């Protein structure tokens, strides 16, 4: 029963983001790649927002986003990634991504937008 799903192959990032969001009263679940992320989304109908890395093994973040949209689910998705090149962002926009955060994660700078998306 999580409000936010954090999808990243790095346990460091998963821990950092989920610790920060939990400290703001937000319930968080995590997934280690796109495949795990899709499975968590299917099994938890309470998820209101996905925060997702781009470069991951097995299934990358943008492919996961495209699969979510293709399934008809209307979940807001924020990409959290070191990638910032325009073509990558455009692919995210085209797939229906709501926002983009360039790593490193800065919780204080992002929390307002995150709360708005799960309200």
């Amino acid at each position: 029963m999580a409000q936010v799903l954090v999808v990243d192959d790095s346990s460091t990032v998963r821990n950092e983001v989920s610790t920060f969001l939990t400290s703001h009263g937000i319930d968080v679940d995590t997934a280690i790649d796109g495949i795990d992320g899709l499975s968590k989304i299917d099994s938890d109908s309470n998820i209101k927002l996905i925060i997702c890395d781009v470069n991951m093994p097995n299934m990358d973040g943008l492919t996961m986003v495209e699969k979510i949209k293709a399934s008809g689910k209307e979940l807001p998705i924020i990409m959290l990634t070191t990638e910032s090149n325009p073509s990558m962002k455009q692919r995210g926009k085209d797939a229906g991504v709501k926002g983009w955060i360039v790593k490193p994660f800065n919780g204080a700078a992002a929390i307002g937008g995150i709360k708005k998306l799960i309200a």
Partner: protein
Amino acid sequence: MKPDNIKSTEVILNRAFSEMVELLDRGQDHDLKIEAVDSETIEQSEFGAVMFSIASSTFRMCLFLHFAEKNILEGNFATPYQFDANKDIAKQYHDYISELGNNLCGAITRMIGDAGFSTGMSTPATLKISKGTLHMRTLNPHAECHLGCSMADNTLIFASLYLFINQGHESDLTLKINEDQTKSVESSGELEFF
């Protein structure tokens, strides 16, 4: 070899490495020093390493982050990431270093992107002992730069960046980096809504 490309390789690593060291420090005021080193110093260290590659249509870059696990753990740098004592610390530590390297590599690709080049970057590859510099030397890079970060005379991390210009582009590639820019990206960490 064009002097611009050698200078730019140095500017890129200096700026990106400084940002990564800030990330390592996280405002904890460790007395961290950054200085240029030679590749022989790195080869003698026998540190572990993570390696990344950056590729464009006209050149490639290889980035190594060589690290001293013991010195970093003893410096309590990992505290902000809250290592879980009930899980494998070594595994969490390697993930932490890989993520530091990922941020370093991301900062480099952003600077290259700002210079007008479209690039892709790899995920990290872990090397048990840092012999990558020896191998790189045999490949005759067009430019290279090495930096070290130390605390109280203990080296924590070295970074090495190598530039390889693709065949046929040796005379036409000019990697011109804006030296006045202070950060690889001003909006890092902020949520940009689409």
